[in-house]
């Protein structure tokens, strides 16, 4: 591929990482959702670009899914849930933003180190893409573990999954990408529905020990 195509792909992947950082920075739910929509949009762009570069039309499907499902439907649905649960003015970082950012930078560095050990035999694009994808994945995990709130954890998980899709599409000629992205969308749909159905409010995971005693017959 020409260097231009390479640079564009590179740019898009990088901006995805950037978007992850922005999500990491947000501590308001609505803002987080908006940034996530942006994140998904960037992903859609980069996937589409890969489809174009690799002449792999089926990737356009993936791009479409990313655009419609992740960038539009999910954020909207979550918006409603948040309104319904009335948790929109949550400030719910576990550790300070500054520390989180430092950790995020550390993770990016780590993923670079890990990936750049890979022999250049695999073409450069793959390496760069993988490096970015890995950092997106790690940042997603970081979001999950630094947020108390169920919704924001789900958002973190979805950004993680975006990283996966990035990697999958970046892997030239990888089969089953569409299937996998669909499967993942189903997974996410389940999660969202789960939140919605089971009314999993904020701090669904803050396990109350008394409740445990009563419910699980476990005593500490």
């Amino acid at each position, binding site marked *: 591929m020409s260097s231009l195509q390479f640079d564009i792909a590179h740019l898009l992947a990088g901006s995805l990482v950037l978007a992850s950082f922005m999500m990491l920075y947000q501590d308001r739910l609505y803002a987080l959702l908006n940034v996530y929509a942006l994140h998904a949009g960037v992903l859609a762009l980069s996937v589409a670009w890969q489809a174009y570069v690799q002449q792999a039309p089926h990737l356009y499907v993936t791009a479409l899914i990313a655009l419609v499902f992740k960038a539009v439907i999910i954020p909207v649905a979550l918006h409603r849930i948040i309104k319904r649960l009335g948790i929109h003015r949550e400030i719910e970082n576990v550790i300070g933003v500054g520390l989180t950012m430092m950790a995020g930078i550390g993770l990016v560095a780590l993923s670079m180190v890990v990936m750049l050990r890979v022999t250049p035999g695999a073409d450069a694009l793959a390496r760069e893409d993988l490096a970015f994808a890995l950092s997106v994945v790690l940042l997603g995990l970081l979001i999950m573990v630094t947020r108390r709130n169920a919704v924001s954890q789900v958002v973190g998980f979805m950004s993680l999954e975006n990283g996966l899709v990035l990697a999958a599409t970046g892997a030239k000629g990888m089969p089953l990408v569409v299937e996998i992205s669909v499967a993942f969308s189903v997974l996410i749909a389940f999660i969202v529905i789960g939140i919605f159905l089971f009314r999993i409010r904020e701090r669904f*995971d803050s396990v109350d*020990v008394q409740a445990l005693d009563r419910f699980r017959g476990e005593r*500490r």
Partner: protein
Amino acid sequence: MIAVALWSVAVLLALAPAGIALSMRPRGSVVLYGACLVVTATLCVTALLHLLDPAHPVLSATLPVGLPWLGAHFRLDALSAFFLVVINLGGLAASLFALGYGRHEDSPGRVLPFYPAYLAAMNVVVLANDAFSFLVAWEFMSLTSWAMVVSHHREAENVRAGYVYLLMASFGTLALLLAFGLLASSAGYDFDAIRASHPSAALASMVAILALVGAGSKAGLVPLHAWLPLAHPAAPSHVSGLMSGVMTKVAVYGFVRIVFDLLPEPVWWWSIVVLLVGGPTATLGVLYALMQRDIKRVLAYSTIENIGIIFTGLGLALAFKAQGLDWVAALAFTAALLHVFNHALFKSLLFFGAGAVLEATGVRDMEKLGGLIHRMPKTAFAVLVGCVAISALPPFNGFVSEWLTFQAILLSPQLPSWGLKLIIPAVGGLLALAAALAAACFVKLYGISFLGRPRSDVAASAHETDRFSIAAMLALAALCLLAGVLPGLFIDALAPVSKTMVGNIMPHQAGLQWLTIVPIAESRSSYNGLLVFLFAAFCGTAAASAIHRLASDRLRRAPAWDCGYPDANPAIQYSASSFSQPIRRVFGSVIFAAREIGEMPEPLAAAPAKLTVAMRDLIWDALYAPIATVIGFVTERINLLQFLTIRSYLTLVFAALIVLLLVVAL
């Protein structure tokens, strides 16, 4: 011949499921124990014939079970033949005893299925010729006996005893498993291959230590004995007899098989370890026994003592063998094996007696017994024989084996090593102390529970037990006497064993005049149980007849004189605790941290004076309690992980990921 043995084992195994069905039937126990009686008799005779076969053939067989590519190997040589005799003699007696005793079992369904399986397991242990079959049988033996230990599961302490027992048993098995793992690294699991291999001295030493731990924990060596006095009394009495009299011997077999047979020439310091464990075990065991009130627990602790004596003999054998003095090693080894045999006899006898008492009175606490010699004379007589025998008093068998051990100790100046020079006399002293204390212990056991006046109504209304039980006990008593007056025959029977294990034998005994036994040379020492017995019998009867004829044979009954204090109340008699009080004051204050707290009420106060004795098992406090505390603490802390939030669990995953990535990256 080995086919016969294996078939009999198969029959025993087949009897186990039959036991489930039989336990539903009214007289099912009789059928089952009768069958066990027949099978064990067959096995006993088979093994005896093999042991006495002048050719001493080594038979082996392989079955297509066990480890798939290896199969189950079995081997019948002199050593296993001897232990087969011990096991099945015990099983024979126990089954005979149980013919009567088993009828009183209130939950037969918890004993009958396991009893034959237990016998089978013990037989397989001594027959097995590869590590897997050996360990399977070994642990199966523990498992089946555990099931019978918890058979009376309504008493909480029995369940606890079973718990401790199973834990310690598995610990021992795992130790043996590690030992075999070391051996297998070079030679695989087949014992023949292991014999052929030449492991390095370091590896052999490690194996020997592991074997001592593994077999010792099953045999009840201090400090791994804690389970024994809990578990043995908890089982039904005929099973207790088997566990104490026979199963501990199977443990001894395991040690002998690994250290004397599978391993190459011993390293000299192994013997030091064994002796340093064996001597104290003997003394401590009998001291514990002296402090007990529960009659079956006394017997269990005295088992520990005898195991200590046996291991001392084995340690001596190791020491002499390592120095190439195999003719002395043969002496020590024979002494140990003879004691194995003798202890199997009288310990089974005593446990049967305890069972008869338990069945007649329903109590195991000596403080509630007394005067049983009047109510159950036959049992009392048999138990008396057992007590004399286990106290190592001539002309009974216990004395012979201890005497031989002493003879071996007296030869220790031959050893070059200084450590042994200094340790062996000390160990001899410990053995002497143990022997004397054992006598004291059994004077107490017999005097308190069988002599004197009944201390409770149940004791006063006791009745003689059934004829099967009595037959079993009297037969064992007769064997004790026989082995005591004609030890030469038994020593000669052991010759092939010591020949194969330590490479030499004691001088041939049967040829000597008057059936004397001479360990080395007549100029050193000799003992003739037969003559001692005859002389004593002659002197006694002569004196009796002479006095009765020449002087007077008149006899009047009258109230006890007792220095003119006629006391109606049997409570004034000495009790078990008060009997051992002097010895407790001599030894106990150190070993049990025994403290006597006396409360004397004010003058003219109506309150009774009280004397309470507080004793602590220092070994338990030092070894077992800490482990329990640590486990409790750690589990308490680590249990918090059950209650974390999902986010914290995710954090764990995340951390694991980061760590692994770093590992790969750097």
